[in-house]
């Protein structure tokens, strides 16, 4: 199988690429900067595309890569951190959150849908448990994720049974640098140490632990495979049942 993975150098993206390579897939891997993809040997089946997903040139490069080599599935694993209470959210930060976490998804779909239609492929977007519930202290992030989730569900209706299969993975708190960053923001806002905040946030997860990126990668690859799959899969350790 040939996969396209965005955000391939991030915490979850890296785990997806590694798991895909381990099972013999070829990967067209997008990341913002080259060094984060350096760990993957091109001989192992990774074709890198370096660039910003808010830049049309990157979308064109991905469209060309998908068209020329063909893809069976796209997994969107990119995103930026968006913690912050209302009075601390600058317009620049809000715009960036909405552009990266929401607007890139329909734009990527437009770029990749022709290639995916040729293979009856799958378009898998990793949103968040924040797409499934309100998130005080995270309102701009939640707004972007709710927008992404709604667009995916609306587009899935338009695609119907004969078009691209659109599937969404909603991970909960996953052990990545992004989680570490948002924990630092929340801990500072609440006057707590990061360690104390982390312990407290663990109490919110019924399973009592954060997800490992490899678990989220396995869920993403499950959704990327052909066959009967759910349109939405919540991988939240029970924190946000869906």
């Amino acid at each position: 199988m040939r996969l396209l993975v965005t955000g391939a150098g991030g915490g979850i993206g890296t785990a997806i690429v590694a798991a895909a390579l381990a099972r013999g897939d070829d990967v067209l891997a997008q990341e913002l900067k080259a060094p984060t993809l350096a760990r993957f040997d091109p001989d192992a089946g990774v074709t890198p595309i370096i660039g910003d997903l808010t830049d049309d040139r990157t979308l064109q490069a991905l469209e060309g890569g998908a068209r020329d080599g063909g893809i069976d599935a796209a997994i969107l694993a990119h995103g930026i951190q968006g913690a912050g209470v209302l009075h601390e959210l600058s317009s620049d930060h809000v715009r960036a959150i909405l552009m990266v976490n929401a607007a890139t998804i329909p734009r990527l779909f437009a770029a990749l849908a022709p290639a995916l239609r040729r293979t009856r492929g799958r378009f898998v977007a990793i949103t968040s448990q924040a797409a499934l519930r309100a998130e005080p202290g995270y309102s701009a992030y939640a707004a972007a994720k709710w927008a992404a989730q709604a667009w995916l569900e609306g587009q899935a209706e338009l695609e119907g049974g004969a078009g691209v299969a659109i599937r969404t993975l909603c991970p909960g708190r996953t052990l990545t640098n992004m989680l570490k960053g948002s924990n630092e923001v929340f801990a500072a806002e609440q006057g707590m140490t990061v360690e104390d905040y982390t312990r407290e946030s663990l109490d919110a997860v019924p399973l009592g632990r954060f997800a490992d990126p490899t678990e989220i990668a396995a869920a993403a690859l499950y959704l990327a495979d052909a066959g009967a799959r759910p349109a939405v899969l919540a991988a939240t350790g029970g924190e946000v049942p869906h």
Partner: protein
Amino acid sequence: MSHTADVPQRKPTNRAWLARLSATSESRVAIQRDAALSVVSMDLRDDGGDAINNWIVEAGTQLFAALRELVVDTAADCPRVCVLVVDPVTDGTLQPVRQAACAMVRGAVLSLGPERPESRLTMVRARPDQLDQLAATLDYLAGDEASYITGASLDLTQRR
């Protein structure tokens, strides 16, 4: 039982802006300031532009700026703000973007309601042909009877 202690009651000013909004989409995001209930309107009628950029990125950025102004940078003890989303609810390729814009507002309002309990934040979704019937909903949200309502989404587009 009265719940007016922290919510000064004022009669809403006239809502001529609703008629203007009904007639034309002058601006995608506009603020109507009112001591009883300020309204941030977001217009999702097709103007031929880049819907993803206009309705998600730019309108969302303007929405948060408006909410900061009306909820944070205000002297009001209990600011009441309603975000009115004007959604034509059509079939076609733009509807997923409209659904996304509505969900964006809902995600923001439902998150900010509990984050800002000193305020009252709501969202109303209505079709353009319903704007002249909105006074009852806005009067209700401005009144004492709605003082327990925040972080709430009122979808008026479902026909009965």
